């Protein structure tokens, strides 16, 4: 129970214009530098987004730098170059030796097995990179002058993630909540705000309620199978289509509702004071609309941008006004610009609205206790997300 006074609601102050131009500028710089600038680009966009999020008038702050990300990436490259190059070639080799001519079930099984084994070699690195990237982001986040942080526990996360993923897959998704909960708990229990530690309460079975829509989708599929069995193929097809759509909505609903459950059972343990508790109420429909409607708008606008930017060079080619080779450089630049605009539109029409929705629907209770939180020591940031950058994993921001 919380006895402390105080309740804070999440604020989001970001707007479309500045983020759009920032994204276009940094994407162009990234393209022109053959990708080197991407670390600075990501950092600048994070600075903007972090400073958009706040509570009680205090904005978050992202203190990472592009340079440290680049250095971390270079370090990760050395390790991954050796590992990935070899693994990929071996994977391809197995693909070749087991190529095509699988005539029996057993051979087919072996073929998939070989691919599976080689991708398993990459999987630990992916989980490792995910945990380290999260730790880096927390270490570079501040609010009210205090650092966030996470413990150096990436390998513990790796083997847990492997086991829980295996369990979730082998149970055909029935134990998915077990994986979601335990991995979230592992991460939350090792996260800090200043000298206050987060704790994930609740039970993994509590996530089954979030799976409701997935079970509905399953029911629709079963219905489709029954219709198929009694040879009513049109009806079966209809129900199966509905089931498939319902399933993808259900996946989103699970993510949103699992987030709600986890957040409502999250506490911040302030030393010598009462816990700060959290609440959130994002709506699946709202997120779905931002995703579908936003993506459609981005898609349409991207087509328009490519058409407009492509019209110039095409016209010049058509008129044979200038030799082809003169047009190569401007055309490539225009193509990059169109891609950059498309990416920036996605940021402002899909990613940012969803973030705004979620942030503004988060609350914290008993926040009077926050006055007692003290600073924590700085974290070097390990590889500064280098592995995640090299393996190209990570979210929108």
């Amino acid at each position, binding site marked *: 129970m919380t006895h402390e006074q105080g309740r804070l609601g999440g604020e989001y*102050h970001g*707007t479309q214009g500045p983020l759009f131009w920032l994204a276009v500028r940094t994407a162009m710089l990234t*393209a022109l530098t*053959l*990708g080197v600038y*991407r670390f600075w680009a990501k950092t*600048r966009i994070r*600075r*903007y*987004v*972090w*400073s*958009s999020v*706040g509570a009680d*008038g*205090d*904005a*978050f*702050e992202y*203190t*990472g*730098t592009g340079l440290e990300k680049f*250095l971390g990436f*270079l*370090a990760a490259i*050395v390790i991954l*170059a*050796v590992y*990935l*190059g*070899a693994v*990929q*070639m*071996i994977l*391809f*080799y197995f693909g*070749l*030796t087991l*190529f*095509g*001519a699988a005539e029996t079930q057993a051979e087919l099984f072996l073929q998939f097995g070989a691919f599976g084994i080689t991708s398993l070699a990459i999987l630990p690195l992916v989980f490792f990179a995910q945990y380290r990237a999260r730790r880096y982001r927390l270490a570079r986040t501040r609010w*009210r*002058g*205090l650092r966030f942080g996470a413990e150096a526990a990436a390998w513990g996360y790796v083997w847990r993630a492997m086991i829980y993923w295996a369990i979730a897959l082998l149970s055909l998704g029935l134990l998915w909540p077990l994986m979601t909960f335990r991995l979230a708990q592992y991460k939350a229990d090792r996260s800090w705000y*200043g000298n206050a530690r987060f704790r994930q309460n609740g039970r993994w079975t509590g996530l089954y309620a979030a799976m409701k829509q997935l079970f509905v989708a399953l029911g629709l599929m079963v219905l489709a199978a029954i219709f198929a069995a009694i040879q009513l193929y049109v009806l079966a097809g209809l129900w199966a289509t509905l089931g498939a759509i319902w399933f993808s909505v259900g996946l989103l609903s699970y993510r949103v509702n699992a987030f709600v459950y986890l957040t409502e059972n999250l506490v911040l343990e302030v030393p010598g004071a009462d816990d700060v508790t959290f609440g959130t109420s994002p709506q699946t429909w709202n997120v779905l609309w931002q995703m579908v409607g936003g993506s459609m708008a981005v898609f349409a606008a991207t087509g328009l941008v490519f058409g407009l930017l492509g019209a110039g060079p095409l016209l010049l080619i058509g008129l044979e006004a200038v030799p082809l080779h003169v047009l190569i450089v401007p055309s490539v630049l225009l*193509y*990059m610009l169109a891609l*950059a605009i498309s990416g920036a539109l996605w940021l402002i029409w899909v990613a940012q609205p969803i973030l705004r929705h979620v942030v503004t629907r988060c609350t914290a209770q008993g926040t009077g206790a*926050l*006055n*007692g*939180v*003290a*600073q924590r020591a*700085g974290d070097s*940031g390990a590889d*500064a997300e280098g592995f995640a*950058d090299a*393996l*190209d994993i990570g979210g929108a921001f």
Partner: protein
Amino acid sequence: MLPVPARYYDGITATRQNVRAMLSEDGGALLILGGAQPAPLEWPLARLRAVGGAARKGHLVLALHDPANRADARPLAPARLTVTDPALIAALRARCHLARRDRRPGMRGRLVRRGALAAAAVGIMLFVILPRMADTLATLIPVEREITFGRSVVAQIERALGATDLGDLDCTAPAGTAALEVMTRRLSAGADLRYRLEVRVLDHAMVNAFAAPGGQIVIMRGLLDDATGPDAVAGVLAHEIAHVEARDATRHALRAAGSAGLLSMVIGDVTGGAAAVFLGERVMRASYTREAETGADRFALRMLNNAGVSSRGMAAFFDGLAEAEQEGGPGRLPTYLSSHPDSAARADVAEANAADQRATSPVISDAEWQALLAICD
């Protein structure tokens, strides 16, 4: 200037201190009054920095530059001051270099060292280890698997050339096929080949020929049309047979699988990144196929010598290529050339070889050559 309200966090606890801020009399510092401090804090304007992305209009978050701070990525002292008074913000922006980037000493050295190490690791992988591994693995692949792989490669190329169904583009006029068979036999007679050769002609105007893994050789109709005579086609065929024997296609596929992954990792999934990876791959392939091409030419000349076929036809073919290269006409030969050595030089080598050859005879009879030319009809 009068003091205005501001928020101060000392970076030690999360307690908010409602303070007042103002510029000092001499204009050299920002004074922070009130809060928990016994005496006013004096922040020199020269050390003042803005933090964060400043998404919120009308808010300015300030911190002090602190070169001694090595715990954070940016050398800033932990305390933060949020100013919202427009006049003070304007004054600070006018007087301070708020966006200044403070570099730590020694960063350039670290960057250079790490960069060199990463470049060396990638370079050694791309140019030394992956090629060696590819060579080894290529010899380990069972021949029958290679053949299956080769079939799928050819199928992909057929589709790319516009075949809706596989075999649509196959040229199968019986007399022409027989002539091709005679040519292939004569060239490979005596050579102890590992692969059973499957030579096909595809109905496409491109002047090209290639060897897929596992003994599949494809000649485009355009090459037959363009050739000066049967000996020229024999030269090209011998060259492709050499590729088959050296397992070049398989080795290159293996190498590409490894290096494409590496390159995409280095360049990243950025705007146009895929194009950059593709280009990088092309450049690398061009660099390491030159060697393979020269080797195949040498092998091809030996084959022609053994079969008693003049390499003058081959020389004529390369001369034609060299001319086309100089014209640079659209649609002619770019794919065949990109990764090959200088055509004029190859023509000279073939010509020199021809001068030393003993008695030669056309690789197939004139009637057979006419049949081969009509293989697609």
